[in-house]
C-alpha cells in the first residue's frame, strides 16, 4: 500500500499524479475463502479490515453486488455520536466513537471525522426529562454528554431560534462535544484500501444469489453471479437487503426495510457550526465541508426497496428545519435521495449468530448505522473470527425477541404523555 502523506502528495504533484496506484484491486473471486462477507458497505468492509488486522484472517472476500459504499454508507447524513441511554447501546456506540477518533491515522486515509458536537434539542418537558436521563446515564458510563440551557444552545449554534414564538420553543439541549460527522464515502474507501492491502479480496458487481448448506444444515458457501464461492464462515452485512439474503438460507428475520430520505442544499459559506437534531419536530441538520446543508428526513411508512420516498416526507422535514431556522427558507434543495434501512422491532441492531451454523448476521441498524461503522466491524470481526460474540455485541442477539430482553432506545425516548 502506497502510504498517503503530504510528502507523497507533493512528490506526486511534481509528476502529474501518475504514480498513484489503485486504492484496492479488482480481483477475480477465488474458489474458497475462510470468511466471506456479503455486503460491501462500511460495516462489511470494516469487518474485513479488522478480521485482517486484529485477527490475522486475511483469506477473506467482501462481495458487493454493486459498488462498495453505494448503499446506506454513501446515503446517510453522517451523524456520529454515542450518547445512547442503555448500557448495551452506549457500550456499542462508544466503542465505535473511540475508533472513529483515531480512524484517519489508523487507515492512513482522511475520513474527515469532525468532532464539532451534536446538539439534541428539547422542545417539551418530556424531552427535558428524557435528555437528562440520557445525560446522567452517559456520565456514569463515561460518555460525554451535557445539558445546555437554551441560551447555551444558542451560543453553541448561533443560527438557532430560541425565541418563545416557535411552535415548540427550545427548552434546552443535550450536547455531546465529541460527536460530529465524517466523510461517508471515505470511510468505505479507507477500509477497502486497508483491507485490500492486507490481502482481502473486494469483489464488486458480484451478487449473492444463494447460500449453500450441506446435509447437516451448516452453511458452506455462497452462490453468486460470478459462480459458487466456498466459505468457512459467512457474515451477512447487507443492511436493507438482509431479509432477502437470509431467506436464501431459510432464515426469517425480525426486520422491515423502509425508504429513508435525505437532502442537501446548495453549498454556502460556513453558516452552521455543529450538528443539530430535534426528534420532537423531526429535523436533523449539519453543514458539510463542501458547504451544503445536510438534512435528514424520515422514513416512509411502508416497506420498499426502491430507494425513493414520497415528497411529503421531504416537505415535512423542511417544515421543521425552517421553523427552527427561519432564515433558511430561501436556501434551495440541491439533491435528495433515498436509502433502504432495515429496522428491527426494538430499533437496535442484531449482531451475532443465526440458527444456521457458520452463518452470522450484522443488521438492523435502522436509521443510525453509519455512526457505528468502526465498532460494528470490530465486534463482528471478533464474532466471525472466534465464532462467539464480543462482550460488546453479546446483548444484540437474534434471540432477544424470543426472551423479551429488548433494547428499545426509541421507546425510551419518544413516548409523549
Amino acid at each position: 500500500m502506497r502510504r498517503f502523506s503530504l510528502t507523497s502528495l507533493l512528490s506526486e504533484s511534481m509528476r502529474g499524479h501518475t504514480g498513484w496506484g489503485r486504492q484496492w484491486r479488482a480481483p477475480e473471486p477465488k474458489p474458497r475463502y475462510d470468511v466471506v462477507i456479503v455486503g460491501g458497505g462500511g460495516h462489511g468492509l470494516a469487518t474485513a479490515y479488522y478480521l485482517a488486522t486484529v485477527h490475522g484472517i486475511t483469506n477473506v472476500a467482501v462481495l458487493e453486488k454493486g459498488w462498495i459504499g453505494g448503499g446506506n454508507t454513501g446515503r446517510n447524513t453522517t451523524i456520529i455520536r454515542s450518547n445512547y441511554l442503555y448500557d448495551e447501546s452506549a457500550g456499542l456506540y462508544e466503542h465505535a466513537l473511540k475508533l472513529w477518533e483515531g480512524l484517519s491515522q489508523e487507515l492512513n486515509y482522511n475520513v474527515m471525522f469532525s468532532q464539532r458536537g451534536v446538539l439534541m434539542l428539547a422542545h417539551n418537558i418530556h424531552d427535558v426529562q428524557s435528555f437528562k436521563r440520557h445525560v446522567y446515564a452517559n456520565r456514569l458510563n463515561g460518555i460525554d454528554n451535557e445539558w445546555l440551557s437554551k441560551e447555551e444552545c444558542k451560543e453553541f449554534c448561533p443560527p438557532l431560534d430560541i425565541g418563545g414564538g416557535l411552535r415548540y420553543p427550545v427548552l434546552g439541549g443535550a450536547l455531546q462535544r465529541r460527536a460530529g460527522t465524517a466523510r461517508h464515502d471515505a470511510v468505505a474507501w479507507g477500509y477497502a484500501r486497508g483491507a485490500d492491502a492486507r490481502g482481502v479480496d473486494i469483489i464488486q458487481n458480484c451478487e449473492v444469489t444463494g447460500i449453500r448448506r450441506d446435509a447437516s444444515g451448516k452453511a458452506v458457501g455462497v452462490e453468486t453471479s460470478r459462480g459458487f464461492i466456498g466459505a468457512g464462515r459467512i457474515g451477512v452485512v447487507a443492511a436493507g437487503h438482509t431479509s432477502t439474503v437470509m431467506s436464501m438460507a431459510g432464515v426469517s428475520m425480525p426486520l422491515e426495510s423502509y425508504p429513508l430520505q435525505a437532502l442537501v442544499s446548495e453549498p454556502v459559506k460556513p453558516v452552521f457550526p455543529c450538528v443539530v437534531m430535534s426528534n420532537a419536530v423531526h429535523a436533523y441538520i449539519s453543514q458539510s465541508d463542501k458547504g451544503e446543508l445536510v438534512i435528514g428526513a424520515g422514513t416512509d411508512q411502508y416497506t420498499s426497496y426502491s430507494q425513493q420516498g414520497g415528497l411529503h416526507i421531504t416537505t415535512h422535514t423542511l417544515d421543521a428545519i425552517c421553523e427552527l431556522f427561519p432564515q433558511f427558507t430561501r436556501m434551495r434543495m440541491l439533491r435528495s435521495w433515498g436509502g433502504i434501512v432495515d429496522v428491527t422491532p426494538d430499533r437496535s441492531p442484531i449482531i451475532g449468530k443465526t440458527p444456521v451454523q457458520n452463518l452470522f448476521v450484522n443488521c438492523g441498524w435502522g436509521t443510525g448505522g453509519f455512526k457505528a461503522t468502526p465498532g460494528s466491524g470490530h465486534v463482528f470481526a471478533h464474532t466471525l473470527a472466534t465464532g462467539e460474540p464480543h462482550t460488546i455485541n453479546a446483548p444484540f442477539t437474534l434471540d432477544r425477541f424470543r426472551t423479551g430482553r429488548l433494547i428499545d432506545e426509541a421507546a425510551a425516548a419518544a413516548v409523549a404523555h
Partner: protein
Amino acid sequence: MAQPFRLSRGGRIDRSRPIVFEFNGKPIHGYQGDTVASALIANGIHHVGRSFKYHRPRGILSHGPDEPSALLSVDRGPGRVDPNNRASVVEARSGLRTHSQNHWPSLEYDIGAVNDLLSPVFVAGFYYKTFMWPRKFWDKVYEPFIRAAAGLGKAPTQADPDRYANRHAHCDVLIVGAGPAGLAAALAAAKTGKRVILADEGPEPGGSLLHDPNAEIDGRPAASWLEETLADLDGRENVILLSRTTAFGYYNHNHVALAERVTDHLPTASGQAPRERLWQVRAGEVVLAGGAHERPLVFADNDRPGILLAESVRVFLNRYGVAPGRTLVFATSGASAYTAALEAKQAGLAVTIVDLRLEADCGPEVARLRQAGCEVLTGHTVVGSKGRKRVTGLIVAPVGSDGRCGGRRVLPCDAVGMSGGWTPAVHLFSQSRGKLRYDDRLDAFVPNISAQSERSAGASKGTYDLADCLAEGFAAGAAAAGSDERRTFSATPTLTGFQPVRVMPTDDDPKKVRAFIDFQNDVTAKDIKLAVREGFQSIEHVKRYTTTGMATDQGKTSNMNALGIVAGQLDKPLPAVGTTTFRPPYTPVTFGALVGPARHALFDPIRTTPIHGWAQSHGATFENVALWRRAWYFPKPGEDLHAAVARECKAVREHVGIFDASTLGKIEVVGPDAAEFMNRMYVNPWAKLANGRCRYGLMLKEDGYILDDGVVARVSDTCFHVTTTTGGAARVLAHMEDYLQTEWPDLQVFLTSTTEQWAVIALQGPKARQVIEPLVEGIDLSPQAFPHMAMRTGTICGVPTRLFRVSFTGELGFEINVPTDHALAVWEAIFAAGQPHGITPYGTETMHVLRAEKGYIIVGQETDGTVTPDDVGLAGMIAKTKTDFVGKRSLARPDVIATTGRKQLIGLITEDPKTVLDEGAQIVADPNQPIPMRMLGHVTSSYWSPNCNRSIALALVADGRSLMGRTLHITTPDGFTRATVSEPVFFDTTGERVNA
C-alpha cells in the same frame, strides 16, 4: 443607455421598457425581457464569478438552467437576499442588486486565485491523502480552513418575509416543457377535452422556437405558429398553461412536483402574493418534453469568460438581441453550431468555424457557411485558449484521423461558441424510474422502458429535427389523452448530428493540460483519469471521488463527458460504465416552496381547549403536550413556577382547585359486544362493572408493555365512556379500531371519538361538592348516592353533563364533562360559585405534583414503552379470570417473568428533605464504583411537595420493591445525593380522602 453589445434589432425584449439593475454596485442597463446574463453580455460583461476550488475567472456558459458558472447573489430587498442564482435564468428587472461570489477582496482581484497555482497539488481527492497530522489539527486548523474556502455564496441571515403557496392539482395529461414537442403534445391532448397542464420553466412558452427566427412550420414563420398555438391553448378551459414553472421531481404513481416562480420577476411585489408556489400534480399521463442540453468541448482552458455554448450564443443573439462578442469562433464537433454561426454572421459579426470532423464527415452546412463568407476549418482541434478574464483567442490545430496534431494557429476572438453535441434531458424520466438505453447513433442515453404512465417526446428523447419533434410531440400528447390521432408537420430542417468527442485531441503534455469537465466544481479531465487510475471505476465512485456532476447544476453539461472519459480509460463501451441515477430536484428548489404555508402558526396545528382564553386572561403559563397547549400553572404577580405550584397544591388539598382536563382523550364504545371488546382490549375485567360505575383501565400493546391508561365509565349495558391520556387519544382509538376491524370483525361494537365533544372540568378538593351542589340538577351528590368511581348524568348550570366522581389528586373530586361550547360558561359559573370556598385554578404542573404525592403513574413518565403493569405495581389491575387480552401472552415471556432484575416503581425519600432530585437522574448502589457504573434505575418523577413539606420522587429501580428502606445514591449535576427507598405513596397513604 449604452449597451455596446446590444444588436440594433431583433430579440424578444421590449426596447420600449428599459430597466436598470446593479451588478457589484455598478448600474447595468437592459430591457424588459432580459435575463441578468443577457443584460450583462449586452454591456460586455462576461466575467461574473470565481470558480469553487481554483478561483479561476468564470463567465456565462449557457443561457438556461444548466448554467454551472455564472452564479450570483441576488438582493431583492431586506430579508430577500439569496445566493447561487443562475444569471441565465434570473429575469432582470429594475431594483435588483446582484453580486458575484466566492472571491476576496473582489471579483477582479481575488487572493484565492493562488489556489490556481497550487492546482498540481489540489487534484481530485487530495484531501483524503493529507491533513491527518497532527491529529488535533483536523478540527482546529485544516477543516475550518477547508470550510471557509468551500461554499459559494453566503446563506441568508434574516427571516424571509415572502409568502409561499402550495397547490394540489390533478389532470389527465401533464406536459413538461413547452417547446415544439410539448406544444404539439398540448394541442393534441387539449383537443380531446381532457384536462391538460402544460408547464415550462421559462418566462415564455416556446422553447427553441423563441430563438429560431428563420424556422417555418407548416408554411408560416415559427413565431406565428407559436402565437396561434398559444392562443388556441389559452382559449381552452381544459388547459392550464404555466410558465416560470419547473417540473423538478417525478415521484411515485405520477405524482409530479412543479415549482412556480410567481413574483420574483415583478418590479413591484404586492407583498401579498406568494413568491413561489409548489404544484403537486397527480397526472393520469405525463408527457416529458424537456429538451436537451448542449455539451461543452473539453480542451485546455475551456473555462475562460467569453467561451459559451454555441446554442447559447444563438439564444443571446436571437432572443435577447445581444452579441456575446464581435469576433466569434465557433468550435464544434457537430452540425448544430453552424446554425448559430450563420445567424451570427447574418447579425454582422465576424465568424470563424473550427470543426473537429473531417471535411468528408461533414454535411452541406460547411459549404453554406463558406458561401456566407466564413472561414471553416474542418478537421481541426482546439488545444487551448488565450486571455485571462476574457477569452482573446482560440488556439487550434489541424488533426488527422490518427489524432496527431499539426501546426497551431491562434484565432483571435472575443467570444467562442462551442458545441460537443447534445444530451437529452432524461432527468425526470430517470426519476420516474424508467430504464434508459444507450443510443450509439446519438451518443446519449435515451428513455427506453417506462416505469410509470409517461412518455417522452422531442429532444428529451433524442429527436432533434423540428418537424420530427412536432410530430412526435403531437402523437405523444394524443396518446396520453387516449386518442390515436397522428399528424405530420412540415418545418425547416434542423441541422443535427455530431461526432462524439470526450477530450479534444492535443499534443500538449497530458499532465499539464487543464481541460474542465465540471466547470463549477473545477473538475478536469485529468482528475477523472486519476480517479480511474486509483481504482474508482463505477461512475458513482468517480463522481464522489472527483465531485464531478455534484455542483449546483448537477452535471447537466458535464455528465456525458465525464462518463465518456471513464469509459475511454477503462476501454469499455460507455453503457458498461453506467449512467448515474437522477434524483430530484431537476434544478434547485427553495425550501420555502417546499414548505409552502406551513410556517409560523401553520407549521403545526396548535390545539387549545375552550378554557384557553380564560386561562390566558388569568395569567396562565402554557406547556406543549402533543399538539395541545395546556395551562401549566397560574402564577400570581411575583410568583415563579415553584411559588405558584406550591400555592395551587395547598389550595387543592385544603380547599378546592379547578383544572382544565379537556385534552384527555375520550372514546364512546357502543354496541352489544362492547363489554366483551373492552375485556379483550384492557387488562381489567369489565363484564361485571355496573352501569354508572367507573374503573381505572390499563391497556397494553401486544408486546406486554403499557400503552395507555384512563378511567372508563359504564354508561349502559352497551356503552362505555373511555378516557385516554392526552397524547394517547389518537393512538388508542387507532389501536382499538385495528383490532376491531381486523381481528374481531364479528364483534358488534362502534367507536367514536368524543374527545372534543366533551370538555372536562376537574374540580378537586375537600370543598368540591359544596361548590357544585347549587349548580347541579338531577344528580344526588351525597357520598352514599354518588360514591367515588361513579358517573351520573344530569345537568350543571342547565347544561347536560356526564359527571364523574373521580380523582387524580387523591382528594374528593369531580370531573365534569360538558359539551365543549358550553364549557367556558360552566367553568366561569363554577369559578364564581367557588369564590367563597377559596377556589383556585391550577395547571398541569400542580396536577403532576398532586398525583405524585399519591403515587399515581403517568404513562410516558413512569412508563417508557418497556414497562409492564407489574413493574409499576399495577399487576392487581389484571383480571385473574380472563384467558386472553391484548398483551397477556407477552407478560409470560422469560425476561418479563424473571424474578429478579425487573425495574420496579418505588418512592425515594431524599436524606435532605429540601433536595429535589432531577427527573431522569440515575440511581446506583455504590457511588464509588469505577466507571462504567452499574445503574439500578432512574428517577421518573420528582417534585417539591408542599403538602408533605419535603421533596418526593418516584423511580424505577431494579428489584426496587425488595429494597425498601435501603439507601441509594442518585446523580445530581455535580455528583450524587442520597435517598431512601420507600413505598411510592407519600400523602394520605390510607387513601381515605377520596371517599369524603
